């Protein structure tokens, strides 16, 4: 049977992708950011930890979805997903290979479990998805695993609540673990941490709140799922509300993680606080 073995959480700042693509990852500004991910990259290189499939929760930044269609939760069921041109040309990263069989299995299962996902069969993926891939896998010729994208609306207010995201994560776990093929599946939650990108309050960072959120996400996920929209926006910046996406991944993991394999926090990456966790389920 397929099994969710681990969750990886990370910010997905576009400037991180640009730094890597332009060969700046060893510059003094970026070196501490990339160094923070080295233990995770090493862990992922071990055969037993390498996922067959990553269920990757991210948000589209007005790339695949303009204001014409704004799905709250959209699951990518295509064979492959091309890196998008976000206004300066597509990132030079491999095409993302999907897993249509598992993706449609999950879609059918969670919709029957009362989560009304939008099914997407054609979609380009932006930095929200490709930057986490680059952070974990570096710059390979081809990505080492298949990916099922779940795009969550966090552009138009209101996004789904943290509570709803957490419950969806639980339904996704149930769906994955009813899939017959033996697959090592990861679930990744991306975005955040504290940042605000617009208006005179741009540049807001709240280290104390971010670290308390990491504590809560690890040790009290039920409590973390009850953080409301207003608290995210007020304390972690208007765009910090992206953190609801971490709750989808957290919902698919054990309430008490078997291992906290990695925890990392760094300020700044461009406008944003970078947070990163690896949590493992009991084997």
């Amino acid at each position: 049977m397929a099994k969710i073995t681990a969750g990886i959480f990370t910010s997905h700042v576009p400037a991180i992708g640009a730094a890597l693509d332009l060969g700046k990852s060893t510059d003094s500004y970026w070196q501490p950011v990339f160094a923070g991910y080295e233990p995770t990259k090493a862990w992922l290189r071990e055969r037993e930890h390498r996922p067959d499939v990553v269920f990757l929760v991210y948000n589209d930044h007005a790339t695949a979805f303009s204001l014409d269609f704004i799905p709250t939760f959209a699951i990518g069921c295509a064979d492959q997903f091309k890196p998008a041109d976000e206004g300066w040309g597509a990132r030079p990263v491999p095409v993302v290979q999907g897993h249509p069989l598992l993706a449609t299995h999950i879609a059918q299962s969670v919709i029957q479990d009362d989560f009304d996902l939008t099914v997407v069969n054609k979609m380009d993926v932006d930095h929200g998805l490709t930057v986490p891939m680059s952070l974990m896998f570096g710059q390979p010729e081809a990505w080492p695993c298949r990916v099922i994208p779940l795009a969550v609306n966090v552009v138009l207010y209101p996004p789904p609540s943290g509570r709803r995201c957490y419950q969806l994560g639980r339904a996704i776990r149930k769906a994955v673990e009813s899939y017959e093929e033996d697959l090592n599946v990861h679930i990744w939650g991306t975005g955040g941490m504290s940042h605000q990108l617009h208006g005179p309050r741009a540049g807001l960072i709240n280290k104390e709140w971010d670290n308390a959120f990491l504590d809560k996400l690890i040790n009290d996920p039920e409590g973390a799922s009850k953080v409301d929209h207003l608290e995210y926006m007020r304390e972690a910046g208007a765009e910090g509300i992206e953190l609801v996406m971490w709750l989808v991944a957290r919902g698919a993991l054990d309430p008490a993680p078997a291992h906290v394999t990695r925890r990392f926090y760094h300020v700044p990456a461009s406008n944003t606080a970078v947070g990163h966790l690896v949590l493992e389920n009991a084997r």
Partner: protein
Amino acid sequence: MSLDKPYTDMPGTTVFDTDQMRRGYWLNQFCVSLMKAENRERFKANERAYLDEWQMSEEQKLAVLARDLNKCVELGGNIYFLARIGATDGKSFQYMAASMTGMTQEEYANMMKGGGRSIEGNRSRKEKPRG
């Protein structure tokens, strides 16, 4: 009954809610068009003529021409969409963010290196001392 908007007291922040979405639909869709290289070229060749192809208000067009991003946000622009204008101009996201704060890009970058803008005094306008 009107919708409850408990988020309007945050200083220097405009939440992109459904009212802002309606206000900014064409402004944001114009920004989406800049994801195509040919449209970027046409916009750069004659900005005013390109903007006139869109059902935007005159105020929105003038805000784009002036690259006044705070005004664009006020008029319904969303930052992820507006970022396409900066990308078309070859400017970094940090440049765009700085332009909204009244700081130079260097001052803003230094603030970020120093740990970012403090939350203290920035949670709510009610929190700020008057004077």
